């Protein structure tokens, strides 16, 4: 029972930190609202674009490479999901698990090498 309480209290602390992290900006911005001036004018509310009048919407088409890198990230991030428990339990698993993990990582590395050869990793 005590262990359960310690466990729950520790996650309660994490929740408290979340509350504090959200409360500080909210409170500070509210206090700022009481202090700061508010003198609106049309020119102030235009979008900044190096001194010229902004033309057409700024949600432009962006480089597809961002998307490809995001895909690569997902692959390797999932790999870490498998690597972390393996590393923690390495003492109990031993050499057999090491070889298995090596095969797993090499399979993913082949993917990385393929992407490399296809010039996906080159940022132009």
């Amino acid at each position, binding site marked *: 029972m005590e262990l359960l*309480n*310690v466990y*729950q*209290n*520790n*996650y*309660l*602390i*994490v929740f*408290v*930190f*979340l*509350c*504090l*992290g*959200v409360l*500080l*900006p909210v409170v*500070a*911005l509210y206090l*700022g*609202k009481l*202090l*700061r*001036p*508010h003198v609106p004018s049309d020119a*102030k*509310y*235009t*979008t*900044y*674009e190096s001194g010229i009048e*902004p033309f057409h*919407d*700024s*949600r*432009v088409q*962006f480089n597809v490479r*961002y998307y490809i*890198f*995001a895909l690569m*990230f997902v692959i*390797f*991030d999932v790999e*870490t999901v498998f*690597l*972390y428990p393996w*590393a*923690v*339990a*390495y003492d109990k698993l031993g050499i057999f698990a*090491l070889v298995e*993990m090596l095969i797993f*990582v090499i399979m993913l590395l082949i993917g*990385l090498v393929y992407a*490399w050869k296809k010039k996906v*990793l*080159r*940022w*132009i």
Partner: protein
Amino acid sequence: MIEELLQSSPGWANFGIFFLLGAVLLLIVLGFVTYGILAERKVMGYMQLRHGPNQVGGKWGLLQTVADVLKLLLKEDIIPKAADRPLFIIAPVIAFAPSFMVLATMPFTDKFQFADIGVGLLYYIAVSGLTTFGMLLGGWASNNKYALLGGMRAAAQMISYEIPLVMSVLGVILLTGSLNLNEIVAKQEHGWFILLQPIGFIVFFIASIAELNRTPFDLPESENELVAGYHVEYSGFRWAFFMLAEYVYLFAMSALITVVFLGGWLPPLAILGFIPGAVWFALKFSVVVFVYIWLRSTFPRFRADRLMEFGWKVLLPVALANIFLTALIKSLFF
């Protein structure tokens, strides 16, 4: 007393006490940020053969940052008409909240720490990744071309360098057999992990600079091409929270490096054990912060293409090799 508190069943009273203690830590962190910014400006000033701030608050400019914060507080808040208003308002909060949340599991000394959860290291990495959303949302909601590009760059850079960052600590986890930060420190009694894991440390350090968006990897906010990156349209206190998040991360990352690689609060030699752990932690922590500032004033900014290629083609294979090298050494010699 704290032991009893932790063992009592959780309720509103506990919540209140934790809240007060957390608020104290928040004040400490804000104090660090205030003087960390001043220290950065002073150190960079002297490295560039000038004085840095020396007007407000005496010769050392001790009140410079306080004055800056007051100025930001009194500045008019402008939300552009074209911006996506709800997202624009919520983005700084999303960027800031995780930066403070990661401190919940940080063991500063054996006594002074908050949550002691089993997956402390994983918690840090997982939660710190959330800030990317804040930056991307801020850039997208601004409806500004520079901001969008800056936000996209920030996201691409942070996810690319998160992989080596995550992989490089695996060596430490292999040697410790735990993700708990306290156990990682306890394991370093006979040798810090910076000595046992030199490759892992170097990869981690480089990746951490990119995660912190600091020079030489400050592409997301490079002034000369993107004006200010994802926070072009932000002004006053909303902008301040993006900056605050950046410096709280500097605090958190320096603390994490101290804990994971530099032995936390442990003294370097057992003879020096009479000096309290807090002093050792503060010393190591200050050294790490100084090195970050030093690098900032020494290196020029990377080019965007070099940055991405370096992360994927150099750091990732090296980090992967380090994992298996460590595993092999561990099963052969330990």
